[in-house]
């Protein structure tokens, strides 16, 4: 019985394997008045979604690259950006303020508007799972 409970717990916990106190509380905050569960697959679609902004096709991958385990490159300055995947970069997603700050800047940059809480929780789930 005990092992069954643990097994179940492990299954539930598996997709959340990589989390930090910062992402836990952010996810809770984003989801506070949402009926919809955060979804990794929605997050994935949003991450790769591209839009025309200022005559340019832009998406999150414009700077972070298509493979989250590789180094990205700031599209304007060419400065290298450390990989987004926690599997190769354990410094990621440790600070709520930092995550919120970059969501704000980058959503505006890539989509011309701020992201909604639902979008942010989907994307964060995706990023944590990759």
């Amino acid at each position: 019985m005990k092992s069954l409970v643990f097994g179940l717990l492990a299954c539930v916990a598996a997709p959340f394997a990589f989390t930090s106190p910062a992402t836990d509380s952010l996810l809770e905050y984003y989801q506070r008045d949402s009926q919809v569960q955060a979804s990794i697959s929605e997050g994935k679609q949003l991450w790769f979604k591209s839009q025309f902004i200022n005559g340019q096709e832009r998406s999150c991958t414009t700077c972070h690259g298509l493979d989250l385990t590789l180094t990205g490159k700031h599209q304007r300055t060419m400065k290298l950006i450390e990989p987004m995947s926690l599997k190769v970069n354990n410094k990621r997603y440790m600070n709520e303020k930092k995550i919120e700050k970059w969501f704000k800047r980058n959503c505006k940059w890539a989509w011309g508007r701020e992201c909604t809480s639902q979008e942010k929780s989907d994307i964060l789930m995706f990023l944590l799972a990759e």
Partner: protein
Amino acid sequence: MRGFCSSSVFIISLLFISGSAGADEPETLWGWLIDFSRAKEVKPVSNLSYQEECGACHFAYPPGLLIEASWRQLLTEKALEDHFGENAELDSEMLNELRSYVFQRTADKSYSKRARKIAYASQGQSDLLRITDVPYIKRKHHEIPDELISGNDKVRLLSQCNTCHTKAEQGDFDDDSVWIPDYGIWNK
């Protein structure tokens, strides 16, 4: 006499210790006089928050590369909302920390030879927002052809100092340590 000697040795060594009390302290005339290693080049960035916030999109420029009047225009809440077309907003607590770090170490407050040249070249130009617009810096790069900068995917912008200046992180911009990506050493 012996007492005098040993106490002056003591005082002098104290001064040395205080003069080199760490790259963290703002510069003083005395510090400059006794600190031979830094007399020439710009002080490297010594503040972690500055390094992190202002080094995210580009090389974190040492405060000694611009005069105070320039930094004061760059580092306001309003200015950072539209920072050369990017959103570089900061909360006011962070902004205050960065302002006090930077304003104490601007080119016109530095004794290094490099910073003095920048300060001198920036005199009376209160609207300089770019290091790359400081006449001294412009002149130094005047002869480098465009294809090595804008035409070079690993550089793209002259503002990416550290792509060519291999010791930029240490504040060292001497032409001896320049290595242009996909080109190499610059011998004009």
